[in-house]
């Protein structure tokens, strides 16, 4: 009466607007992915945990004052979201995996698979997948066949009913008496019409199919008594077009392995920013490769003038004094490949991060080239956050490999060279905001490399 209790949600179709809004948020995340990539808290999360992304809401823009930091908090009053100016701050929980996926999509995940992959195909027998109209008798999908037959038959019966105006049960009986054949069924009916109207068979048949005015009275008479008196069992007639078969396919499992050899210069000259950048770059490279390969192993090598195998946290944290000989790192990586990662079974990805100051650049480049022969791609990242003093290593690589150099973006220099199926990419960068374009470059789809 005056008070009404509603059980159902009075709103219908609201999901659409929520979904649309979430899509807009996703677009914002996509646009800002290059910043999200450089966020430290993302890489400290464990898998399965959600990374919390704070988004300054999506604004409905309108003219507002520039308060410039002065806040006199006379604001909200009744909770009216959205219509009021000011920020709507969201904390959206995003699955780390989903964020990585978005980052990958934005990077244009390279299909290295097609080019250089050594995938091992393991045939695992056969599997049944899908239904077709033709096939081996032993693979006939009987239930589906019967279903198709019933469908077709019902359609035919309905057609008879439509033409004659008889009830469906009567049509079914006629149909079955006619052996499941639509035309035979119509023939049966026509013969009865001939008996009644005394017209020719042809006339009656045509009238039945088209203009029924002539035979209307006769049809009416036929309706009165059943055409088929005997007991007609319920039967389904199977035609060729009803047959259905399972499809058989060969089942092949693709096994792909990637070994990432992370080599880092931990000599005194690698400061905090360099550590951060190399750590971030490695995290994302690892994540990207995980998406392509079934199995990715990552090995950590730290070096000064000498190299050492170590674990992840050590790799990140360690810092020593002394000089740098990159060759030590490359040599250790090479021997690792020889002993544990046979290039016929593994796709090798060494990545070296240094600041370019090297005691023996010639040696280092040679060692790198040795390793390059066994690798899919060797990435060299030279991190120089204090401006660009000409470093020796990058130049040495360029000279030795006769690689083409170009400026990728302001502050980022790139050299690349393909040698006998292996790819060398060297990038010099210095800031957090370079991280995203650098990663993108390391993993680009198509590389147009000039000899």
């Amino acid at each position, binding site marked *: 009466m005056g008070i*009404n209790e509603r059980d159902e949600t009075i709103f219908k179709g609201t999901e659409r607007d929520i979904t649309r809004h979430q899509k807009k948020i996703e677009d914002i995340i996509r646009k800002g992915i290059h910043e999200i990539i450089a966020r430290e808290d993302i890489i400290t999360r464990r898998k399965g945990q959600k990374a919390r992304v704070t988004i300054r809401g999506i*604004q409905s823009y309108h003219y507002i004052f520039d308060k410039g930091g002065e806040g006199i908090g006379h604001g909200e009053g009744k909770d009216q979201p959205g219509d009021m100016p000011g920020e709507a701050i969201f904390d959206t929980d995003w699955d780390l995996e989903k964020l990585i996926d978005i980052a990958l999509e934005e990077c244009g995940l390279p299909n290295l698979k097609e080019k250089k992959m050594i995938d091992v195909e393991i045939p695992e027998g056969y599997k049944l997948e899908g239904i077709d109209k033709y096939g081996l008798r032993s693979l006939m999908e009987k239930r589906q066949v019967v279903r198709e037959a019933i469908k077709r038959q019902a359609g035919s019966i309905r057609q008879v009913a439509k033409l004659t105006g008889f009830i469906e049960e009567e049509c079914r009986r006629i149909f079955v008496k006619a052996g499941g054949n639509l035309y035979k069924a119509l023939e049966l009916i026509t013969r009865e019409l001939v008996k009644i109207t005394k017209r020719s068979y042809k006339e009656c048949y045509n009238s039945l199919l088209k203009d029924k005015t002539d035979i209307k009275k006769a049809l009416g008479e036929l309706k009165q008594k059943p055409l088929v008196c005997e007991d007609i069992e319920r039967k389904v007639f199977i035609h060729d077009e009803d047959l259905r078969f399972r499809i058989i396919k060969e089942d092949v499992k693709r096994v792909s392995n990637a070994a990432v050899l992370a080599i880092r210069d931990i000599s005194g000259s690698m400061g905090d920013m360099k550590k951060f950048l190399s750590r971030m770059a490695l995290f994302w490279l690892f994540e990207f490769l995980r998406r392509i390969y079934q199995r990715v192993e990552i090995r950590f090598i730290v070096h000064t003038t000498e190299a050492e195998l170590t674990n992840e946290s050590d790799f990140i944290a360690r810092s020593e004094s002394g000089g740098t000989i990159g060759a030590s790192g490359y040599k250790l990586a090479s021997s690792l490949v020889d002993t544990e990662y046979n290039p016929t079974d593994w796709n090798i990805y060494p990545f070296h991060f240094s600041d370019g100051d090297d005691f023996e650049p010639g040696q280092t480049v040679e060692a790198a080239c040795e390793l390059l022969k066994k690798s899919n791609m060797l990435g060299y990242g030279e991190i120089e956050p204090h401006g660009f003093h000409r470093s020796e290593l990058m130049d040495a690589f360029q000279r030795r490999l006769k690689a083409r150099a170009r400026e990728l973006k302001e502050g980022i220099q790139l050299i690349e060279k393909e040698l006998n199926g292996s790819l060398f990419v060297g990038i010099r960068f210095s800031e957090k905001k370079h991280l995203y374009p650098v990663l993108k470059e390391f993993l680009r789809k198509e590389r147009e490399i000039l000899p």
Partner: protein
Amino acid sequence: MNNKEERLKRLEIIDKRIQEIAREFGLDCFSQKFDLISAKSMLYLMAYRFPANFHHWSFGRNYEILRTKFREGRPLPYEVVYNMNPSRAFLMKDVPIPLTIATMTHVYPHNDFFKNNRSFRFTQRGMLRKASAARDRFSEYEKKYGNEAIEKVIDDGMAIQFNINTDISCSPQANFEDRPLEPESDILFYIIAKAPLAEWQRDILSVIWEQARASVPHKETTIMNEGWAIYWQDEIMKRLAGEKLISREEFNEYNYWNSRIVAFNPWGLNPYLVGVNIWRDIEDRWNKGKFGKEWEECKDSAQKEAWDKKLGRGREKMFKVREGFTDYFFIDEFLTKEIIDSIKLYIYQKAITNDGKIVPVPVEKDWKKIKKSILGEMVNFGFPKIVLIDGNYKNNRHMYLRHIYEGVPLESDWRKKTTEHIHRLWKKPIHLETVDKIEDGVENAEQINTPFGPMIVSRIKFREVKRLYTYNGKKHSFKDS
């Protein structure tokens, strides 16, 4: 009779009694219908403004914000009441019964306010039906022109939904001049009338315009209306308790809940708290005769304290005020120093204590300044005032707008985005004249002592410069005068 039916029956009996009591008190209401809905429905209702409304992602966003707040424990309003005849109110159903009853007693004074306050005299009372009809029409448009096209128009309309004429007593004219004799404040309506738009686009913008207009009287009477509702809710609940229609426990539960609604909030003005305090003060003052020339001129505080002429005209005055005032004049005339001090309605800033807690610290206690700041926020609902000067600027259908500058410049990112929206509708360059503050050197370099030693601190000086911003559809530019 099961639980639900019993509950409904009791509510109906109490509802009847509430109506009688309300009438006794002098409240004058439309007949009232109640709908009990789930919390989820309530969230949707608040997000969409009406029980049915057109589709837009901003409503989806509103819903997400509200749901986040709800999850964080912020209490939802237990009612939404619409200004119509008969009035319709939606209540949350899974709520302790004393709170449902209290909410009903809250709804009737809202009803009375809608019926009697001047601001609502010109309002549309068929908004629910219109919103639902709009949804159906827009669905047809979406089928014809695609969702995205419709969404764009709504986006554009919403960008200027606050640039309407807030005086809703006058209907907008049908014929606009290119150069209106007086600067036109209803930019949205001007665009509807004169922009090169298809009929369906005009329809969409008109709906947005109508809904924005319908919200104007609500926005300009929030404090009065909520205060009014809290005041009478309390009176009626006390009566119901006295008549034993609700138990002692139920009444206590109501009190506890009510105290949370009228709780003090240092970061924002709580209309319930401020409103009800002003109403009670009006009642007290007009009962005791604490008004007029004699009262104003009295300087003796002890005398003022003890003043009591036993006039008993409090209620009478309240009813007059509820009819003729809006928030602006309500605050201006009736928010006194005494009220401000008694509820500590100061201006606060955040400070951190030694153990890392954030506490509010009053930085402004001067009641004149506080009042001025509150009133300042109320002009044009806190939005900058933009008017249209010319719809045929440069004799080439450019639009020329002017920001009525009153000391605070426009936020630039929002300005750009909003102007882009206008351009998408008008399809010709948009010019906006405003005043910006730009850095102009430093002044008052002074030496202060800090924990790090003496430091020179100087304030950045600002210079006001008149600027004409132009957006031509591709880029933004400006010219200083």
